[in-house]
């Protein structure tokens, strides 16, 4: 097996609390994870489980209290802002909310050009690249001149994906990228993620509260609960045959779109209580 692209070791993250002499809030307790090149690792958990914090720590948006985050063999957890900026070529992000993750005052072209220009591309090269990116995420090329508000949620998420792809990163942190989308839109965006991975070999750290989504897109799945990894393993194994009781509960709690099967599952769940 190839060496991991991203390796998180004993990651602890604490947030200072407001108020005098209040102890900090520990969001992550010694988390261990790894992502291999071209692989999708799903992080699943409920609110407060710390799944988003892991993603933000990898992106340098959340503090690292102790432990390490190795990318390509290099510990990036204590990078300064300059080194962090140079990482933007390798690690990118797609956020949950397509309404707030795009600056509403900027055109799609400006949004997509931003990372390119930072990397020193000239305007012309950037605009060629933007046309290719829009095509890549199946948006019409005339989208470039418009503002985000002219697009639906799914389309905005495509823009966000295009921005993440702009620098051809090796890892994209996807923080609940489909949970704000309608069902049919979600399906199309998931298809797009898979298609891009096939084409570019990018690795995903895919964060979601929805086990079904994670199950669908991931090679491996980590289940988080209160800042700890309860279970980390092969997607099929975790979702078909969960070891931890919490994962089992999670699995049963999610209703399936079939009245007959759902009745059986409900009875199983209630019996388990």
């Amino acid at each position, binding site marked *: 097996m190839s060496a991991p692209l991203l390796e998180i070791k004993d990651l602890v993250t604490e947030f200072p609390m407001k108020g005098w002499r209040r102890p900090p809030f520990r969001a992550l307790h010694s988390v261990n994870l790894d992502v291999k090149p071209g692989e*999708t690792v799903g992080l699943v958990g*409920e609110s407060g489980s710390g799944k988003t914090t892991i993603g933000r720590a990898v*992106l340098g*948006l959340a503090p690292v209290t102790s432990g390490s985050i190795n990318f390509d063999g290099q510990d990036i957890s204590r990078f300064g*802002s300059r080194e962090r*900026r*140079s*990482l*933007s*070529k390798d690690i*990118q*992000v797609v956020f949950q909310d397509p*309404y707030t*993750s*795009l*600056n509403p*005052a900027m055109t799609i072209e400006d949004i997509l050009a*931003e990372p390119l220009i*930072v*990397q020193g591309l000239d305007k012309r090269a950037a605009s060629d690249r933007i046309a290719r990116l829009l095509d890549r995420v199946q948006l019409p090329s005339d*989208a470039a001149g*418009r503002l985000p508000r*002219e*697009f*639906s*949620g*799914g*389309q905005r998420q495509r823009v*966000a994906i295009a*921005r993440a792809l702009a*620098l051809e990163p090796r890892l994209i942190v996807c923080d609940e990228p489909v949970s*704000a989308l*309608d*069902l*049919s*839109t979600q*399906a*199309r965006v998931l*298809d797009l993620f*898979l*298609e891009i991975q096939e084409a570019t070999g990018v690795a995903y750290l895919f964060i979601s509260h929805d*086990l*079904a989504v994670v*199950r*669908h*897109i991931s*090679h491996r799945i980590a289940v988080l609960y209160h800042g700890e990894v309860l279970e980390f393993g092969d*997607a099929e194994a975790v979702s078909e045959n969960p070891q931890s009781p919490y994962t089992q*509960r*999670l699995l049963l*709690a*999610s*209703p399936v*779109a*079939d*009245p*007959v*099967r759902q009745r059986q599952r*409900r009875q199983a769940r*209630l019996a388990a209580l």
Partner: protein
Amino acid sequence: MSTVADIRAIANLTKAAIRQSLFSRILGSPVAFVSLGSLLILIAAIIAAPLLTPFDPNSGDIGQALLGPGADHWLGTDSSGRDVFARILYGGRNTLGGAALALAVASILGVTTGLIAGYHGGKVDTGLDWYTNLVIAVPHIMVLLAVRAAWGSNIWLIMTVFGVLMAPGYHRLVKGIVSGVRNELYVDAARVSGLSLPRILGRHILIAIRAPIIIFAALSAVVVIGVQAGLDFLGLGDATVPTWGTMLNEAMVNLYIAPGLMLWPGLALGVVNAALILFGNGLRDALEDSKSTKRPSRRRGISANAPKAGTSGSAAVPAAGGSDGDTRAGAGTAVVGVPGCGFIPDEAVLSVENLNVGYPSGDGHKLVVKGVSFGVRRGEILGLVGESGSGKTQTAWACLGLLPTGGQIVDGSITMSGRDIGSVSARERRGILGKKIAYVPQEPMSNLDPTFKIGYQLVEPLRRQLGLSKAEAQAKALAMLARVGIANPERTFDSYPHQISGGMAQRVLIAGAVACDPAVLIADEPTTALDVTVQAEVLDLLRELQHETGMAVILVTHNFGVVADLCDRVAVMQLGKIVEQDAVEALFSNPHHPYTRMLLSSGLEDKKPRTRLLPAATPVLEETKP
């Protein structure tokens, strides 16, 4: 003083502000446009003063004092024979120039410190906060007078100092906005994209504060001009420099001899003030309008208000839904339901017939619900399912008679025990709400009043609707809290909403909804905002309550899993219409409408992981912006 006033109101607009270009906003508001226009004309006249009048504003012939308006002196002369028109123009240079200077100083200083404090927070913020408090607490007029005594009455110096004194307003405004914007995802995205801090501040944050600052500047200009005129009026300004304030002061001295002298500087001040206020208000209103187009809530989209007709973002608009085509009643019949989609069962407790809900738009109504018919029997749970923009929530609100401002039932009836409750008086409706028909909302936290204890929020309607005494209502509320599975009802009763979890809050809302034994419960996405494990418990609770009381339930949801878990019957909505309605097993096993089939096939169940979910040819419905 009134403007410091508006800081908060303005700050609230930020999000809206950045969603539209500033220029188009100003153009979009006739009031703002006209007032800005008149201001600019006035400023142009002031700059072009030497071209407009041959007179020197500072000298005249005292033998020609206090002349009325005439051919030579258009607005007459003042008490030393100076031309009033010339003084208005040249005085405007000082008055408006001084105000501009004060505003420039205040905004540069306040915006800088506000940016720093808002972006960094922490100790810097605390220190700057303390400094602002100091500046606010010092009596401004005394500082101005002391400065004047110390360094002479130079209007530009005084206005610079006044700018420093006004900076805290800008500081607070900017800090508030920036600390909000700082946490916006697009700022995070910019950081991840490798942007440096100055670039982020310049490109992403300044844009956000631009419009609020312009509004605030317009309103605080009124204050500056007022204070400046006030100082001059009190004789505390520089009498040798023509300003509208010194003109007023002169008019006061001659109040009984030439009352007309008050008119022109007063008018000039009034026009400028009115223009500034109207400009600020106009821009604000324009932003407020755009703000009311809320974005969908966190996990699932429900357009809370009238969705605006927008440009479709793609060529792939399906035949079914050109959004521009729906602005008038009767238009847009492309979505066609399968037979039986308007089924109203016999003995329905609540029946909706041909419901049309619209919002005013241009020359008519934009319909968001078009000819919807359904009914729900006692003991039955009807699922109302659809994607964002399908009109399911609007339908629910229409049933409750609680459509947002502007929304109205354009056509159709909502019948409950033989009465059309869609057209009853507000008073009658209050008798029905809570007692006959109740509501469980989507977001538990935002649906409890944060300022009242939970107990009070439960007791208040019980006393009103059931006429219970305080003690009885309290006992009943505690019993209800126990019934919905809250372990320690007394503690929850005494808690404020922010002290309990989301799941618990949803139980409280359910307790409040079913407390008066309603015949119909309308639950709008009651579990969408909850974690899956909590969702399962809440669904169990709803099921139990429904079994116990036999109430009819209309469950609005986008989640087919929830529908499968809870509903007896289900109606599928698309673009304001019900396209299919059937018993739940039948619908899942044998969907007729292509839209239903598409929705069901979009689900992840039984799909092989890491394979395509949709065939490439599926209509790209998402491309229709709601």
